[in-house]
């Protein structure tokens, strides 16, 4: 079974600063995908970024980037130039690549607050 651990329940950052959210996971699989989802106060989950385990290059999406360390089973999210709209709960999630419709295993989340 796969597990996803987010050890930081809450974090805060000043507007325009950079913040890194941590995520570790445990799996015996070699092919899998990792995701960061964002849940703003509206509570609608939105995909932020996705990383394929077979790719060594870290994924980036505008101000969001990841630091994927496969050997260490670590998948952190870096938010640059933080904006007030980035205030949200952030969930790390894991999914194996085999042909199963069973979807994501989520971490417990990190509540990020961007301070003006």
């Amino acid at each position, binding site marked *: 079974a796969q597990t*996803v651990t987010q050890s930081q*329940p809450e974090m805060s950052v000043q507007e325009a600063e950079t913040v890194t959210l941590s995520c570790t996971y445990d799996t015996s699989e070699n092919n*899998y*995908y990792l995701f960061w*989802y964002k849940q703003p106060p*509206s*509570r*609608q*989950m*939105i*995909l932020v970024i*996705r990383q*394929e385990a077979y790719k060594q290059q870290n994924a980036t999406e505008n101000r969001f980037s990841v630091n994927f360390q496969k050997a260490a089973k670590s998948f952190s999210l870096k938010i640059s130039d933080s904006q007030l709209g980035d205030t949200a709960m952030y*969930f790390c999630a894991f*999914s*194996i*690549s*085999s*042909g*199963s*419709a*069973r*979807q*994501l*295993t*989520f*971490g*417990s*989340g990190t509540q990020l607050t961007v301070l003006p």
Partner: protein
Amino acid sequence: SQTIHQWPATLVQPVGSPLSLECTVEGTSNPNLYWYRQAAGRGLQLLFYSVGIGQISSEVPQNLSASRPQDRQFILSSKKLLLSDSGFYLCAWAKGRTGAEKLFFGSGTQLSVL
């Protein structure tokens, strides 16, 4: 474009009453459909998923059931609600059947069982 509708947004029900939450997807065919529950301050727990009409997989033994009477309709039900059924319920869909697929979520239903 594809959209997902989930209702109601908020629901307060007494213990022992029935439940029916509905989710519909528009703009796509044969989606994979999912019901997740989010307890207060916690991550998402997968309850059910469906790869086609009438095909339901249950992840967690519980007081709830799911049905998929039409291709793009997914219903979460209970005959008798328990206090422990309170939580935030999210419906989601994905196009494919591999782990790579992006999930699209509905806006959720906050269920309070009193």
